[in-house]
């Protein structure tokens, strides 16, 4: 069986920066990946149009997070705050890019956040986004913007986790022998460093299939890295898979959107529930 063509080149990365802790984590992860792949980093700060509209309303009051007091919230204040956040975002991007000596650019857009972000990422190879943003009820699963990016983005998506990111930590790739899985594996091989452990989770329901997948993965990996471990994971439930991933404690989970073993919804649920950064690889061929 001939090895299918894989396309995993990441040359431009768009990172959404809203100055929240998760967006800082996504910036850090994006910068490290960009540094590793010699990619260009493009920072985007979006001034939420809904926030500005709300500020124009005559009765709007802000409930302060740390005091629970009401404070008037007008357009001038909103503009001032957004401008300040934009400057901070620009500075954060510059600092990260300089650390990895990568080319970078920054732009501030105004509009509805999720849609504007997806369109901003259209001409790039990876959209890096924080697991959660500024959504008020944001402490469970993915935030609304991250969910939209995972589900609707046309490009690869990196969902960063608050717990930090390092390419020296182990990488986990879900592999079922499909073309999408090969893409994910290829992306992982591009990211692994000399001493990074690569864990390949072989998703199959029987030994023969597992063996076949393993041979295929081994053939693809070849001599590109020596620190590879294969794990057989039966496709019994998503919970088991999540537990296996969490137990490995990876620095990054790479999963393809187009696999045979898991449907898209299962993959979205997985991304929603794992406790590590995830790189969702979309097949472009």
């Amino acid at each position, binding site marked *: 069986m001939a090895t299918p063509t894989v396309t995993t080149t990441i040359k431009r990365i768009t990172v959404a920066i809203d100055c929240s802790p998760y967006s800082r984590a996504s910036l850090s992860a994006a910068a490290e990946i960009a540094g590793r792949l010699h990619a260009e980093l493009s920072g985007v700060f979006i001034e939420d149009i*809904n926030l500005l509209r709300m500020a124009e309303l005559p009765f709007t*009051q802000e409930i302060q997070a740390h005091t629970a007091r009401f404070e008037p919230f007008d357009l001038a204040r909103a503009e001032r*705050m957004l401008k300040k956040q934009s400057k901070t975002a620009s500075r954060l991007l510059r600092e990260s890019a300089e650390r990895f000596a990568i080319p970078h650019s920054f732009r501030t857009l105004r509009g509805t956040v999720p849609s504007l972000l997806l369109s901003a990422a259209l001409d790039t190879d990876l959209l890096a986004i924080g697991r959660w943003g500024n959504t008020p009820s944001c402490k469970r699963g993915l935030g609304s913007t991250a969910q939209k990016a995972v589900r609707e983005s046309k490009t690869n998506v990196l969902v960063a986790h608050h717990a930090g990111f390092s390419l020296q930590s182990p990488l986990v790739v879900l592999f079922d022998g499909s073309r999408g899985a090969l893409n994910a594996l290829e992306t992982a091989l591009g990211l692994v460093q000399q001493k990074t452990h690569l864990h390949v989770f072989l998703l199959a329901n029987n030994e023969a299939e597992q063996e076949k997948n393993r041979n295929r993965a081994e053939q693809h990996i070849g001599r590109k890295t020596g620190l590879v471990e294969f794990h057989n994971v039966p496709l019994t439930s998503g919970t088991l898979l999540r537990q296996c991933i969490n137990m490995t404690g990876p620095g990054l989970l790479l999963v393809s959107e187009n696999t045979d073993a898991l449907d898209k919804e299962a993959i979205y649920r997985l991304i929603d529930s794992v406790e590590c950064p995830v790189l969702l690889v979309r097949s472009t061929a």
Partner: protein
Amino acid sequence: MPIPEPLSHTDLYNRCDPESLSFKSTKELDEAITVSGQDRAHEAIRFGVGMKHQGFNIFALGPAGTGKQTALENYLEQKATDEPVPLDWCYVYNFADMRRPMAISLPAGDACGFRDAMEQLLEGLLTVVPGAFSSEEYQEQEKNIKEEFAERQASEIEKLEKIASEKNIALIRTPSGFAFAPVKKGEVVNAEEFMRLKSAEKEAIEKEIGTLKESMQSIMKQIPKWQRETRKKLNELNRQVAAFAVKPLFSELKNTYKDHKAIAGYLDDVEKDAVEHFGQFLEKDHDKQQTPISPLQGKETDSRRFNPYRVNVVIDNCKTQGAPVIYEDKPSIQNLVGDIEHLAQMGTLVTDFTLIKAGALHKANGGYLILNARRLMMEPLAYEALKKAIRTRQIRIESLAQLYGMASTLSLDPEPIPLDTKIILLGERRLYYLLSAHDPDFNELFKVAADFDDDMERDHDAHLFYAAFISSIIRQEKLRHMDASAVARVIEYGSRLSGDSSKLSTHIQSITDLVNESGYYADENNNDLITHGDVQQAIDARRYRAGRVPEKIEDAILQNTILIDTESEKVGQINGLSVYTLGNQSFGKPSRITTRIKMGKGEVVDIEREVDMGGPLHSKGVLILNGFLGGRFGQDQPLSLSATLVFEQSYGEVDGDSASSAELYALLSAISARPVKQCFAVTGSVNQYGGVQAIGGVNEKIEGFFDLCLKRGLTGKQGVLIPASNTRNLMLREDVRDAVRENRFFIYPVNHVDEGIEILTGIPAGRKQDDGSYPDDSINGLAVRTLKAMAEKQKKQKENSNTDNENT
């Protein structure tokens, strides 16, 4: 009155016969020294040491170098060996009040074991606690609790969001909080559109948003409460996990020390603290990653973090045998009661209980502490601290800097340790009497005075003690041994040192020095043993080394710069003898004393006193002469003379009454107009009846005059008149003894001035006859005649004067 015979050369020296010593050399003497001649002091020490009641501490008084310390240490070391070994003491952290570290006592030798056990416990905690908190079970539970909080918060907000959403209102996050806004098709209604709404619609929206805001505020007000609840749950979980993890470690240790109440209590506190502050055991790796200012500082900080779990053993008696006997050479307050040291950390002085240092009182607790009293007094606050410790029977460590207010950093107040120590002060007599007179506490706290004598009776036992002592010095200093003749010479030196031929000096230091110096000359002379000659050479060399001043004075006399006549006869002039002490050397020197008489009211004027150059004792001696003259010559007629007395060419203060007999001889010579033989020198004090009394420094005085005569050439007439009662003090040099033996120099023991004046003038003093008169050709007779003539002349002058007044 018959004049006394001059002393025989055998009277001038109490020789020690080497044959009387039962050994040929000190090599044969290897017995321990048994201190001799200080029975009174030893009895006092024995009593003081035996008395266990408060205040029966000892002050050993006596001149420096008399072996007080050696004697005490020897006695105490013997006694202390059979006494129980005192407790170990350690300081531990006080979890209730960190400024007051707790003192814990343990049986001798156990403190180090306790310290090591606590170190092992700490190591265990650093392993067990991180293990427990990194377990999956714990992390799962922790995560659940945190998620519960997040769920609760999110759920409440979601509920509100949903309610809002049903009313087309969105909850929007602002940069610093939340706000509500009406939405239409997923987007916030802009201001223009809102303004186009009917008033009722606008009011309804505003009302709804107002209600939602209130609800949101209510939720947010509850968040801190939920956080507290979450934290409480987490704390409880942590406590349970930590308690479970550390329990086995503590159980083992508590079992070991179950019978020790203080340690058991301390271990309870440690366990409680370890559970409460489990986080510190998890921070080990984190701290190591911090970049310290200096490697040392980093290490120190890391190491000191766990000090509350450590033990500071201040007294470890694991190698002590018997009760301790401690001599503190520098009794500063820190060295006595201990100290709290500080560390400089980031420019600040910090301390904790591990920096508590024990003092001499701690080390001597349960035993004996010997201190030099003078050094104690010279150390600021040390004496007061010692008294306080004795009085309160406890050792309280106080920082000198804190007492003086020099350090304002947070310091410690360690728990005092009970004190049970016998304190022994060593000091001079003067210091003892000063303290006794002026310090009200002293007599209460130092009730036993061990008075060390300056000398001891010279008998056979004392000779053997000297020999044994010399032997011990020789062994200690690794010198050549001494033959018996050398030992005998040292004994004779000891006798001379004491100033009494029937006694021996107890000034151990002088004897030790002489033995060492003799050893040096024995080396130089290549003698196998230190011989009599080596000892004599050492004595002579010592005299030579100290001889610059006496030689200068002697040269001045020989060159007649200082006028001392040793040949002719002069009226009213006599050679007195004085002793000069420079450093630790004394020497004698003759002084010319002259007297002149004139008519007057019967008074003797002491010129020294008139110009404030005479000390009180000297003035007293001169006034006694008045009494003598009045008693002898003033009973039948008034004394119509006035006499002046002076020490010629004296440029410093004159004190002492040892020249009073010489002054009286000069007066008698002047009154009787009979010359005194200048070949004699005189010493001795006199009483109102003419009795000649003992004086000090007789050997130096005789040798001083002898040396001058020897330089000028001995004529076979020269000599010295000394009080007969000083004969027992004579330990004269060999050359003096030889001159006496060869009748080239004479020493007359005089009991009464009448004996002396006859020797000095060759004319009898004259005994009072039944009619109250004296023989005409006697000194007294001549004196009476002179005084009578003066009285008559004075009477005549008075009568003439009265007649002149009447005529006028």
